[in-house]
């Protein structure tokens, strides 16, 4: 399966325009996407309410737990969950599965919302990337990103509890940048290059840390 995917990627690279038969095989690969990605694409491309409802069932309780961990009251947390879920619906066209996992995209929306409320000013955001005219989705890249995230998840799961705690605090926004550089113990500075490579590196660093 993986080899096939890679071959397909090479083929796609050698032909700027994906031939029709390739498109058909791409839609076959689509069935390999995670549920979250399938739901999110259905929301983005078809405004599918059933898929949105499934996203809600998956993410809303996680978001609520995450936001409460960040210090909000349960009632505040539900208000933020509501804002985040509505933002997911309204900004679905910004979701690009080639660059972000659904959970990463939602994490970023949730952090923005939290900051907007806490600081009463908008968090400055980078300019949106100017999308090239949409060719066919590159299924191998989307799947590759999902695999990276799965492996990253496994790597995080093998951390010692106290290390895991520090990483969680950092990404919940509870540590300053000075604390992140001195406390996480992760050589985060070496995450360079494109996201997939970045994730691979981080995974290796996490692995080194646990050995």
């Amino acid at each position, binding site marked *: 399966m993986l080899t096939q995917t890679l071959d397909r990627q090479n083929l796609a690279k050698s032909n700027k325009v994906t031939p029709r038969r390739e498109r058909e095989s791409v839609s076959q690969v689509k069935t390999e996407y995670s549920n979250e990605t399938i739901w999110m694409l259905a929301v983005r491309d078809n405004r599918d309410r059933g898929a949105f409802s499934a996203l809600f069932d998956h993410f809303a309780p996680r978001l609520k737990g995450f936001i409460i961990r960040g210090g909000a009251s349960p009632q505040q947390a539900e208000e933020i969950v509501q804002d985040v879920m509505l933002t997911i619906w309204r900004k679905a066209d910004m979701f690009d599965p080639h660059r972000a996992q659904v959970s990463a995209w939602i994490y970023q929306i949730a952090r923005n919302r939290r900051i907007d409320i806490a600081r009463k000013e908008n968090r*400055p*955001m*980078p300019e949106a990337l100017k999308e090239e005219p949409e060719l066919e989705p590159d299924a191998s890249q989307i799947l590759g990103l999902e695999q990276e995230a799965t492996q990253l998840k496994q790597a995080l799961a093998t951390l010692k509890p106290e290390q895991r705690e520090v990483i969680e605090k950092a990404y919940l926004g509870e540590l300053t940048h000075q604390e992140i550089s001195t406390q996480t113990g992760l050589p985060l500075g070496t995450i360079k290059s494109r996201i997939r490579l970045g994730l691979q590196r981080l995974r290796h660093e996490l692995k080194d840390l646990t050995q």
Partner: protein
Amino acid sequence: MSAITHHVPDAILASYAAGSLPQAFAVAVASHVSLCEHCRAALEAHQAVGGVILEDTEFVAVSAKLKDSILAQLDAPFTPEPVYERNGIFPGPVMEVMQRHAPRWKKLGMGVRQDILSADAHGSVRLLYIPPGQAVPDHSHNGLEMTLVLQGSFSDETGRFGVGDLEIADETVDHTPVADPGTACICLAATDARLRFNALVPRLLQPMFRI
């Protein structure tokens, strides 16, 4: 934008992703990321870690009515957030702080000009205009200072900085940036504290100009 060599350190990028970075620095980081594909990819890697942590967060059940309440709002009209496009040398996040105005330069002497875009107890964001060959008044910092080059280039004791490069200097750095010959250098400078000027006259001017 091929020659960016000074990037955002990873702990600062992680802090930006998590939303714990002070607002003034977040403007500088979002502006740099707008210009730098390398740091955009690294930021996406941090967001992926955040996404994994969100996925793994312990559930907290949401109240029964929340989903219906959200589904009922999907078709409600809403005001999209404003989008700030890049304008000439100014990245979107700078345009946001400027509220799309052109810079309102104030003379600091020796041809150096500045425009304070925001300043409060938590820090300041300003634009600096430095004529070719001219030095920024000698200064050191109470806290951290981030300087992003938007036009031209400058050099100081630590190296040369061209368009898109981000210099980060803390209170241990007593530096004198000098604009390189040729084009005037325009920078975005962000601090989390008031600047201290070492020369007498600028120090007297400090209360007046809030520099």
